[in-house]
């Protein structure tokens, strides 16, 4: 099996996996970074969202070749102690019910706000539309993104 060098949360890691292994399973099974969640495996639910050079991407549909030379951030590396403004807003709104999709929601929201710090409601809905929440906490997610946007100014 080929060896890959990947940059995750600011550290360089070496993994020895088959080349078709999606980044999701490299993170979860080989690097013990299980905050990134498996939901559908086909890029439809957003539970596995990570940042690739700051852009939100679906790790279930990314190969190692596609992230070669790029920096990966997972939920574990979004902040050192859970104090990223998006994480703070999520806690303030007490968003989660089951909580399973929330890492993906937070990763989508944080990449979006970094590029669009003053979003309209419609911008937020469009940005978040790819992330399913089965508990349907959408109204709280929307408010949390608004709070985070205000606090990031």
């Amino acid at each position: 099996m080929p060896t890959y060098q990947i940059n995750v949360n600011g550290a360089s890691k070496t993994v020895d996996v088959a080349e078709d292994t999606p980044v999701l399973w490299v993170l979860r099974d080989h690097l013990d970074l299980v905050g990134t969640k498996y939901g559908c495996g086909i890029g439809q639910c957003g539970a596995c969202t990570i940042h690739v050079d700051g852009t939100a991407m679906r790790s279930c549909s990314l190969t190692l070749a596609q992230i070669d030379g790029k920096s990966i951030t997972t939920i574990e590396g979004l902040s050192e102690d859970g104090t990223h403004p998006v994480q703070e807003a999520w806690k303030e709104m007490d968003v989660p019910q089951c909580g399973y999709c929330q890492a993906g929601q937070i990763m989508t929201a944080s990449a979006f706000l970094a590029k669009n710090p003053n979003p309209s409601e419609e911008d937020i809905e469009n940005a978040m539309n790819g992330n399913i929440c089965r508990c349907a906490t959408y109204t709280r997610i929307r408010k949390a993104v608004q709070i985070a946007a205000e606090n990031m100014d």
Partner: protein
Amino acid sequence: MTLVRTQLGRRAFIKNTGMAGGGLVLGFSFFNACKPKVAEAVAMELEMPETWYEINGYLKIGDNGVVTIMSPNPEIGQNVRTSMPMIVADELEIDWKNVVVEQAPLNTNLYSWQVAGGSRSISSSWQNLRMAGATARHMLKEAAAQAWQVPASEITAIAGVLTHEASGNSAGYGEMVSAAAQIEVPEEVELKKNSEFSIIGTSRKNVDGKKIVTGKPLFGIDVMREGMLIASLVHPPAFGKQLKSFDAEEVKKMPGIRDVFSVKLYDDDFDKMAFHFTAFNEVVVVVGETTWQVFQAKKALNVEWEDAPEVTQNLTLFGNEMKVKHPAGMEDSESHTKRLKELIASTAKVARRDGNPEQAFKNAAKVIERSYSCPFLAHNTMEPMNFFANVTEDHAELLGPTQTPEWMEVAVAERLGLPLEKVDIQMTRQGGGFGRRLYGHFMVEVAVISQRMSAPVKLVYTREDDMSQGIYRPSYYATYRAALDADNNLIGFHVKAGGIPESPLFANRFPAGSIDNYLAEDFTVDTNITTGAFRAPRSNFIAGAEQSFLDELAEEMGKDPIDFRLELLKRAEENPVGSPESNDYDASRYAGVLKLVREKANWGQNEAGVHRGVSAYFCHQSYVAQVLDVVMENDTPVVQKVTAAIDCGIVVNPDAASNLSEGGAVDGIGHAMYSGLTFKDGAPEQINFDRYRLIRHREAPKAVETHFVESDIDPTGMGEPPFPPIMGALANALYKATGRRYYHQPFITDKPPLIG
């Protein structure tokens, strides 16, 4: 003053009285595995004590006054890991910031009803949780009384501090706990008055909030162990098929693959409970080193399937025996609809008959008849089914997401050939339940696989496995008829409802009891597609159908839809039809939520361009009324706002309960509007989120506002009740917005109206 006899949970206390001799319990854990206690405390920024003292099965107190409270029930997103310990903490009189919450393992000696089902977690443990806290408070006071030589009745306990004002003595719980652990457990304890609650009724944030937003390993699918293997299943591609043979030679050579074999889950003579239900009793198992290797190997496996014969399963549900017949053959949605329509037009079983409904319909000046339907649904918890097991020769350890650990333990023990006490089950946080994890066949599957591999194993379903091997929400059909006299008075009511394979009818719920001539009938259709409980079973369809019909009826009668319901409820309250016991609901509480929502939503003061629908329903002992606002944007109806009024008794954690109300409403809008599982040649046509639609951000209402009825009644259900009625409110608002009625879910594919 409320006195409760501690006998209520005597089992818990007998055990601990035995311990009281020793008093000191280090560690307190039932199992040493998997409890990162230090990490948990650090996360909560609390210093851990040097010594813990177990007071009873629900709590231990440290020598520094920090308290650990066990949360006995499965956490599926209903927030019991926060709200159940809140109840203990309130009676204990401890500052919430000094509480550490720990998930209790399955322990039938200590706890009862460790189930996430029927919206009963809080209501079934309400007394026990309070008693556990109050007993500890009593023992702490007794210890202080002995130390200070003063009467215990003169000692106050407030926020973890014991005080005897007259003598000027004061001590923290941590200082008294070693002595308190030696105090005999009282025969009965005094509970607080409701007016004295200091934590119950206040909003407390999710105890796992920080861990969730930082991606900590909380869920079953996150479990990792040294030497752990991954397993996944290959099941028949359609209902009506079964395993014939498989060729695993090539797959066994694939990288990382350890073994491929078939597993028969239950023996034919196994005495099954309803929760042991499974779609496919024989499956092929692929075991390997990593998840991706196993998922890839599954795709490469050569399996031959054959037609399955008709089978009848004998199941028990709380002592009742049920026979479930699964016919042979491949079913499809078209023939399902045809069969339901045939049966709705023929004779059905009478479930309730008041007065003379036949005569009323014969005398009617006008009869209104409308039919409603809904498809099968997959639960689609975001975390697919999974479980961990480590089975050795004489012990089985299971860890993961299950709503029914106690009932599944029986099946696991039986299948492994181990006594019950050798099977230990622990629960992780769960990525959703919605009823799917009531059916824990995956626990038996992983236990058998671990036993065979002699290794720790985590079983993981793919999304496709999860959606195509479901225990689905049944498909239902209902026809409502109303008889009106020449003056437009309602003189007769008839509901006939059925489903595949169960009827959605609740014959004794509203409007039963409010109409003199009433007939309720139902029927069922056998299927080989496995179905079971889905958030608010049966209510999740019949509420929307009934509440849509009542809306149409009110319009026909020229009445405001809320006034019309209140008139019926007034009749049910003042002069109910049938005996007082025959109606399941409390008409005054039902009317109460309608009146509250009318006030809070400013019903009747319509804004231009806002189209409103109302609905109210009773289930799981709670009452919910909702008003839903739709606006038209580019000729498309958009749900703008939901206003909810809820009577669920005492609300333990109001903000968390509001979250459930918001989620329930949005979930209901989503399922009524978009979701559906259809079948062709026995196989579901939607097996992932590319074809199965769940509601998304853009489709969710902008706001959900929740108002609770102030109440002194012990808590009733909250996880399920907000879900069913919204479907009626949605249909009724859509009618106002678009001019057409919606009868068949999902509404997005509903054909033009049947009104004629």
